[in-house]
């Protein structure tokens, strides 16, 4: 508020200005008054001159009547107080004076016009042709003070008005300054309001973030709910199947039931994988695979996921180079893309899955094309966003394409989308060509043949039921098993018996060492003993690189394959 003292000054300035104007008015009045007095004197001179001229003949010829007439003529002027006409000898030959007026001077001597008391008076010679013949005396009343003051009324008013205007202007200036101060205050308030608004915006932002988080949680909740529902259905198929198996002896019938049960279990496995993937906890497990083999192998799964009015056309050249990617994630991505395509084709259509050498060097492109509704340009940029969905609540989580995108990135490739509204959509997955040869032949149909020789497997599993299932699977594969329910038990079993060919251990076990720690211990004490870990969880980042992990749930084929790999690696080493 540095203007405050100035504000004072301005008001004083207005006051001083008003004073100056008043003083000026006074000075002007005085000057004017003296000018008026001078003029009055000159007027008096003129009047006297006229009088002298009008009486010159009367004086020269001593005509008192005529002189008196002239004098009376002057009395018409109300300002005239007295008139006197004198002959050369000083004798008064004519005069006029108002009632109560002062007596005329007895002996005139010419003198300059002057003020005397409330009067102006003059004495002038009466001349003709250079000769002096007498004198005239003229006395005027001075204008009364009031009248004179009255003459200054307009001036005085003007001055007063000006002074008033100045004063008002000063006050107005003050008011203006005050208003300005208020404005400044308001500006400050506004600033404060602005900063509090900013604070609110920040709060709101965090609230929105919380909302996003809660939406995420909600989505996950929905997903979980959906998965639970699906699982219930699957479990119903399995439990119903088991019950039927006990009642039916017909082998054909039993095979059908078992096939249905097998499918249900497969779907359950897929669902679990999807769930884990959504939770983004599935680590990528890069393998060198053949795209053609992998996707062709998905056909029955995909067809089951689609509707009858949708034709699936898988057309992948067999001679494409192998790619380096996570096969489970690839399958999931293809599944997600097909489900999206299905949802986009409410009146049926064709899904074409193809592959080709990518335009980018050393890539293979997998294309999933549909003949569906297409994606409007305005949302095209958002569809890869997690949780972005146009589907009604409970039907879409918006995580499908997010998985596709994330998977492509993690594989070192990319995902892009081309779409035309009304014609269809193509999603292109670009995956890097592997520098390695195919690591394993594509799994063949289940010849549950006993490969090479029978092995002795130490199964470490805390859950009795799982343990018995796993043991029977190994037995089905022609192997012999010993069960340990903890890492300690396993170690003591190994100490007692050195004839184990393989340790098959669950990672998560209650208390004591877990599977990973056990594997490390075994590495130390029995480096030549192969260890295969298994888990139902993802995210075991501390698993030593290169150590194979079999993910639950698995089928006997998966187990056989994993077993084969582990034993062969050992053999090669």
């Amino acid at each position, binding site marked *: 508020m540095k203007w405050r003292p100035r504000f004072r000054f301005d008001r004083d300035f207005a006051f001083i200005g008003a004073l100056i104007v008043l003083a000026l008015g006074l000075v002007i009045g005085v000057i004017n008054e003296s000018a008026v007095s001078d003029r009055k004197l000159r007027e008096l001179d003129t009047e006297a001159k006229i009088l002298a001229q009008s009486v*010159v*003949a*009367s004086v*020269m*010829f*001593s*005509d*008192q009547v*005529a002189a*008196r007439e002239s004098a009376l003529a002057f009395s018409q002027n109300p300002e005239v107080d007295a008139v006197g006409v004198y*002959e*050369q*000898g*000083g*004798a008064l*030959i*004519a*005069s*006029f004076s108002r009632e109560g007026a002062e007596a005329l001077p007895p002996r005139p001597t010419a003198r300059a016009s002057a003020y005397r008391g409330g009067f102006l008076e003059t004495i002038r010679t009466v001349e*003709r*042709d*250079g*000769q002096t013949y007498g004198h005239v005396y003229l006395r005027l009343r001075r204008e009364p003070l009031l009248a004179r003051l009255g003459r200054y009324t307009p001036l005085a008013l003007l001055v007063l008005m000006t002074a008033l205007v100045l004063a008002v202007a000063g006050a107005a200036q003050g008011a203006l300054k005050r208003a300005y101060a208020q404005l400044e205050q308001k500006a400050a308030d506004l600033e404060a309001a602005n900063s509090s608004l900013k604070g609110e915006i920040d709060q709101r932002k965090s609230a929105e973030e919380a909302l996003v988080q809660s939406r995420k949680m909600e989505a996950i909740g929905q997903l979980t709910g959906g998965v639970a529902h699906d699982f219930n259905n699957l479990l119903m198929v399995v439990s119903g199947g088991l019950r039927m198996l006990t009642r039916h002896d017909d082998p054909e019938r039993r095979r059908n039931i078992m096939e249905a049960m097998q499918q249900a279990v497969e779907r359950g496995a897929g669902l679990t994988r999807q769930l884990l993937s959504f939770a983004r906890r599935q680590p990528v497990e890069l393998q060198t695979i053949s795209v053609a083999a992998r996707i062709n192998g998905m056909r029955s799964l995909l067809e089951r996921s689609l509707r009858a009015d949708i034709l699936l056309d898988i057309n992948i050249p067999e001679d494409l180079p192998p790619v380096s990617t996570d096969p489970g994630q690839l399958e999931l991505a293809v599944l997600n893309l097909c489900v999206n395509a299905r949802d986009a084709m409410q009146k049926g259509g064709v899904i074409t899955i193809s592959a080709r050498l990518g335009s980018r060097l050393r890539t293979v492109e997998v294309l999933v094309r549909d003949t569906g509704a297409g994606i409007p340009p305005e949302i095209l940029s958002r569809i890869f966003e997690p949780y972005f969905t146009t589907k009604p609540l409970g039907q879409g989580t918006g995580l499908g394409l997010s998985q596709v995108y994330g998977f492509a990135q993690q594989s070192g490739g990319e995902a892009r989308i081309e779409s035309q509204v009304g014609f269809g959509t193509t999603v292109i997955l670009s995956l890097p060509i592997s520098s390695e040869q195919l690591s394993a032949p594509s799994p063949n149909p289940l010849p549950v043949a006993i490969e090479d020789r029978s092995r002795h497997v130490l199964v470490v599993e805390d859950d009795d039921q799982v343990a018995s299932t796993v043991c029977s699977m190994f037995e089905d594969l022609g192997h012999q098993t010993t069960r340990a329910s903890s890492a300690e038990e396993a170690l003591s079993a190994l100490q007692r018996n050195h004839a184990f060919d393989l340790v098959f251990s669950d990672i998560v076990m209650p208390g004591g060492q877990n599977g990973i720690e056990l594997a490390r211990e075994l590495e130390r004490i029995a480096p030549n003993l192969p260890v295969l870990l298994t888990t139902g969880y993802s995210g075991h980042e501390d698993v030593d690189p290169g150590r194979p992990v079999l993910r639950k749930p698995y089928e006997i084929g998966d187990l056989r394959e994993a077993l084969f790999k582990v034993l062969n690696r050992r053999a090669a080493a």
Partner: protein
Amino acid sequence: MRLASAIAMLVTAALMGAAPPARAQTSEESVKATFVSRFISFVTWPPIEGDAANAPVTLCVIGAEPFANELERVVSDQRINGRPFDVRRIAEPASAARCNAVYVVGARVEDTLRAVRGRPVLTITDGAAGDDARGIIHFVIVDRRVRFHIDDARAAEGGLFMSSRLLSLGVSVRRRPAS
């Protein structure tokens, strides 16, 4: 303010201002002489060829020796617009034609008036002296004061112009015909 009672005294006083102190005695004659000298200020003569700007004003007197003396005394040191006065006593009325003004009384009034008729001569006659014939200016006594009649028509005949200030003082004024 009534002055009638003091007229004589005033007249005397007026004349005393102009009169030398040596002649304390005031008379009708001296008033008339003063008036004659003063009439000159109110009369304009037609320009006369060869007349110098400061040529003396010729005042002629016929048949009034004491008046001539009085007039001489009155104008002795007077000047009118720088011109001095020249008082002449003449006998022949015909000679009056060469005067600027002529004061005539007695037997030769009419002859004189006839002689200068139509000439630029200010003729002054005197009723107070008992003459009836009137010149351009004709003295009379009114309320014991010297006054005069003015015959502007006669003045016009001689080409003279009488000032309106003088005309306004005439007891009577015979107007000149409108030109």
